């Protein structure tokens, strides 16, 4: 049997598929989150240097990973939307942006909560913190540009260009901030974690990262379903959908 992937490029066929997939991703995300939180709170040992406060990395590190990864995926969908002119790709890009921005905020917030007991400051101008902050600005720019343009197709394409420009810039920004940081600041504050991580700590972090993945996919699919309904409200299949008994 040959699977025709392009069949699901049409919103009309993707909408029910997404509806079927969401519970799977949502439930596996919830189960993984419970398992990950159990591992990170009850199984993982207390760090001998940082005490209990280190446990925030079980949220912080997965959130930081997701914030960067979602930006790249978003730019990938945006590029696909520009190149193949498929509506659904652009919808996926705009469905991912709020989730990415959310994870960036979580990463910054938990970083601050971790920094206060560990470094004694809510915020330091560390290279990673600074580039994460700039990443948040890039997400906000994407969302703001998309919201400012009334015609959805034009909004899609304009914000796609912005996302691609951002993707070219992210490494440049990261390295310039890193270099700026090493020039300005002595090694008083080091972001490097304890060199050896206990296996259970790593496991907890990986399970939490997987949970974040599942959550992101479920959230993006749910959001893209709303976007599809909003944009295709004149389509016949949506009228039929409304008539169907639930």
């Amino acid at each position, binding site marked *: 049997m040959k699977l025709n992937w392009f069949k699901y490029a049409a919103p009309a066929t993707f909408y029910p598929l997404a509806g079927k997939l969401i519970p799977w991703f949502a439930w596996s995300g919830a189960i993984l989150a419970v398992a990950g939180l159990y591992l990170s709170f009850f199984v993982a040992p207390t760090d001998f240097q940082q005490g209990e406060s280190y446990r925030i990395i079980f949220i912080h590190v997965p959130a930081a990973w997701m914030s960067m990864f979602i930006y790249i995926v978003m730019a990938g969908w945006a590029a696909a939307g520009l190149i193949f002119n498929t509506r659904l790709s652009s919808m996926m890009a705009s469905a991912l942006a709020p989730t990415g921005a959310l994870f960036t905020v979580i990463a910054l917030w938990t970083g601050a909560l971790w920094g206060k007991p560990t470094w004694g400051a809510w915020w330091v101008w560390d290279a990673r913190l600074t580039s994460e902050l*700039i990443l948040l*600005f890039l997400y906000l720019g994407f969302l*703001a540009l998309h919201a*400012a343009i009334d015609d959805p197709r*034009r909004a899609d394409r304009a914000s796609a260009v912005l996302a691609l*420009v951002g993707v070219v*810039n992210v490494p*440049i920004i990261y390295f*310039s901030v890193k270099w700026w940081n090493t020039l300005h600041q002595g090694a008083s504050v080091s972001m490097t974690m304890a060199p050896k991580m206990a296996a259970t700590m790593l496991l907890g972090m990986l399970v939490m990262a997987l949970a974040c993945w599942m959550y992101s996919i479920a959230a993006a699919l749910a959001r893209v379903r709303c976007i599809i309904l909003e944009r295709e409200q004149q389509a016949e299949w949506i009228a039929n959908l409304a008539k169907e008994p639930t």
Partner: protein
Amino acid sequence: MMRTLRYIVSRDVLLAMRRRADVATTLFFFVIVASLFPLGVGPDPKLLRAMAPGILWVAALLASMLSLGRLFAADYADGSLEQLVLAPDPLAVVVIGKVLAHWLVSGLPLVLISPVIALQFDLPAEAIATLLLALLLGTPLLSLIGAIGAALTVGVRGGGVLVSLLVLPLYVPVLIFGAGAVDASASGMDAGGHLSILGALLLLGMALAPWATSAALRISLE
């Protein structure tokens, strides 16, 4: 192609010269912002000397961003932008011409006046020379990056504020290496590394930004 480039540059510079007040506004904005900082942080010369590179560069960033609105808005309003997009020459050439004109009108005067402002902050002569060089390399890059944001927001409501949100995060590397060069030179170190990276970024911007800008313009004018 060269003729188109020359024509666009001379047309835009001529248009800007017909409305000199706009050009002067950008310049005065730069001067005023830079002069406000000593009033805010106090007249201690040591503090001011340490802050000068950052202040001058941030002021340059803001001034360059303020003038971005002029890049495409007027041409969009009177319809000539559409004619330029339809012209047989590659749109990237038109964009390069417009960016060059924008830099000549808003970037170059700022570079030329910056030594005077630097004197207010008691920067040593060597650092002032580096500042001049760094601004000379950095301000065209600001115009190039800014053009992308300006093209994306052509005809969008609230475009002026939006463009700052889009463009300022992308200005970060220019700020870091520009201010870093002046900083290094003020503390007696070699600024060559910073300036080289600034030059490399300028080349990268020259290669990629006109392309992205013309894609954005095509989308905006659909």
